[in-house]
């Protein structure tokens, strides 16, 4: 509703349609709606939220009469929404099945939480290409870790973020840290004290598998959780 109001206002303010960001705003909103319909708000949460933030900014810019900046922001929102949509295309529920191939241990049922065995609960978790979102299949592992950490406040862990060898050294350092931070945020949201967690990124510098196949790349796109 608010969206339509803004649009109408924008139309009213700028009689000449060529000098408004309406087309761009509309296209971006459509892309966001489609992304939400495709569950991108769950499956590619970070990118989807960035798209929403960008469209909000674009609307504000349009209201302020900053047409070029509004167009640019709207295009950015559209690009983000489309990427969020593309990332969630295979469907979130299928991710768990993929994980069976890449990390058979993730599904091994060990009730570590009951024994408060931190070392036993710490497992490596894996990520999608150029992405730092916690996959559905990792959530059970991280919940066990969170349970143990909340019950053992004297224990600390280090989360190492890693990437596959594709992409630049520097970008991968930052992507690796984003992965580690994503794990940290997940644990904190589960009640873990932030002070128990230290994160570090090694980018693509410490691969597990030196091969060039997709399965090698998948093994390298990971966060390792270690007792400090």
């Amino acid at each position, binding site marked *: 509703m608010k969206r339509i109001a803004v649009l109408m206002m924008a139309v009213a303010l700028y009689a000449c349609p060529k000098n408004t960001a309406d087309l761009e705003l509309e296209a971006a909103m459509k892309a966001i709606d489609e992304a939400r319909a495709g569950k991108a708000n769950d499956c590619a949460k970070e990118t989807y939220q960035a798209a929403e933030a960008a469209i909000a900014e674009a609307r504000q810019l349009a209201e302020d009469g900053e047409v070029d900046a509004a167009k640019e922001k709207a295009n950015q929102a559209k690009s983000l929404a489309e*990427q969020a949509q593309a990332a969630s295309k295979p469907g979130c529920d299928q991710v768990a099945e993929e994980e069976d191939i890449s990390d058979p241990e993730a599904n091994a049922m060990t009730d570590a939480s009951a024994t408060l065995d931190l070392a036993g609960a710490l497992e490596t978790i894996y990520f999608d290409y150029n992405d730092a979102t916690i996959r559905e299949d990792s959530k059970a592992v991280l919940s066990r870790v969170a349970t143990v950490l909340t019950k053992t406040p004297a224990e600390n862990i280090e989360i190492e973020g890693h990437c596959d060898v594709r992409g630049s050294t520097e970008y991968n350092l930052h992507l690796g840290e984003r992965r580690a931070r994503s794990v940290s945020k997940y644990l904190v949201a589960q009640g873990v004290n932030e002070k128990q967690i230290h994160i570090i990124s090694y980018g693509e510098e410490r691969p597990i598998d030196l091969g060039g196949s997709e399965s090698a790349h998948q093994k390298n796109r990971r966060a390792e959780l270690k007792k400090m």
Partner: protein
Amino acid sequence: MLDRIPLTQTTAGRTPAAIEVLVRRLLFTSLFLIASPAAAFAQGTGTRAVIEIGSPDFRPYPIAIPDARNMAGGTAPPSAESITDTLRWNFTLAATFKVLDPKSYLADQAREGLAAASIKFEDWVNVGAEGLIKCGVTESGSALKADFRFFDVASGRQLLAKSYRGKPDEAKVFARKFTDEVVEFLTGNKGIFQTRIAAVRKTKTGRELWVMDVDGSSARPVTRNKSINLLPSWGAGGAELLFTSYIRHNPNLYRIPLSGGAPKLLSGERGLNTGGAMSPDGSKVALTLSRDGNSEVYVMNADGTGLKRLTKDWGIDSSPSWAPNGKRIAFVSSRWGDPHIFVMNADGSGVKRITDRGTYNQTPDWSPKGDLIAFTARDERNVFDIFTVNAETKEIKRLTQDQGNNEEPSFSPDGNHIVFTSTREGRQQVWVMAVDGSNQTRITKGGGYSTPAWSPYR
């Protein structure tokens, strides 16, 4: 065949300043110069021909480089061979030149000496040469004297003469010095053959910084700390490297003098301290930090004080590279989802996306000439290649294709060459090429190299 070469008076001399003259370059029987600056040109002072690569009238300058000879007579020593090889390698890489095939030379090189009077210039004209470089070496004991001459073939005039004295193992150094003399004489731009290239090399224990000459020779490690040392970039004047290292269990930014000595901490913020890039005037360092919970580009004074944040964004912002005037910074951002090349003012304002195409563009390096930004892009086949983008027009040019993965470009200080990594021969090696993608040449052996960075002029 007529070519147009603007001649520019670059220093105060007897001829009028800043003149452009049409010069006739007849392919085989040219007069190199027919205008008034000829006198100054012949004396090797003042006037220089500017031959811009990429200009519509550009034609490489054909140059003959016969074997360096032993001035004492008899077999040439290894130093002579080293000089010949280095000269030919240098002028082959320099895209303004074309080295004529030595097998085609007609001159009786056994009889020709260094003096103009002993040279039959007709023989050099007839192989298509416009320029001729001659070298003679004299070795006595552990001393080497190398005499270099550069001639304009059409007029038979000697344009440059230099003598260098030292030890036989300095043969390459002398050849590089003379190459730079010839390049500067003809183009007005400083030569790049005495500059160096830094890169990271994988070792059994980690990653170390290495430095080598432009042709890959004299490669040596700069760090030996067995930790992970990454992303070298050159400090002002080329006397030090900035780099990220895990020596203190956090990826901090350090500087290390090439003359030896311990690394000095430049930025030790919590989280990542990467991509240190010194501003062209040496006063500032742009870098990427994650201390505020996300990867953002910052700028600080060269001594590490006065930190200022330039970007504020949900995505990854990293890899800053300065425009040569220090007023703008190119960087990578994933704020649109996929990583792309952006440009902003040095205070963080005026952010503009520069790459409209592709879905994965990284590692921007701004040309010292100011017009182009070189970068790595992943194409639709998931192959990485080197491209340039014009910072104003956003026009994109592809420099590598169908030759393995090619990544991490870095401009030479004259803006005419690019160093990069390639896997086209298997392991990742360091390669160099001209800015138009021509003359791609591998310079390292052994492999395991990444993120090369070309030094500024010394």
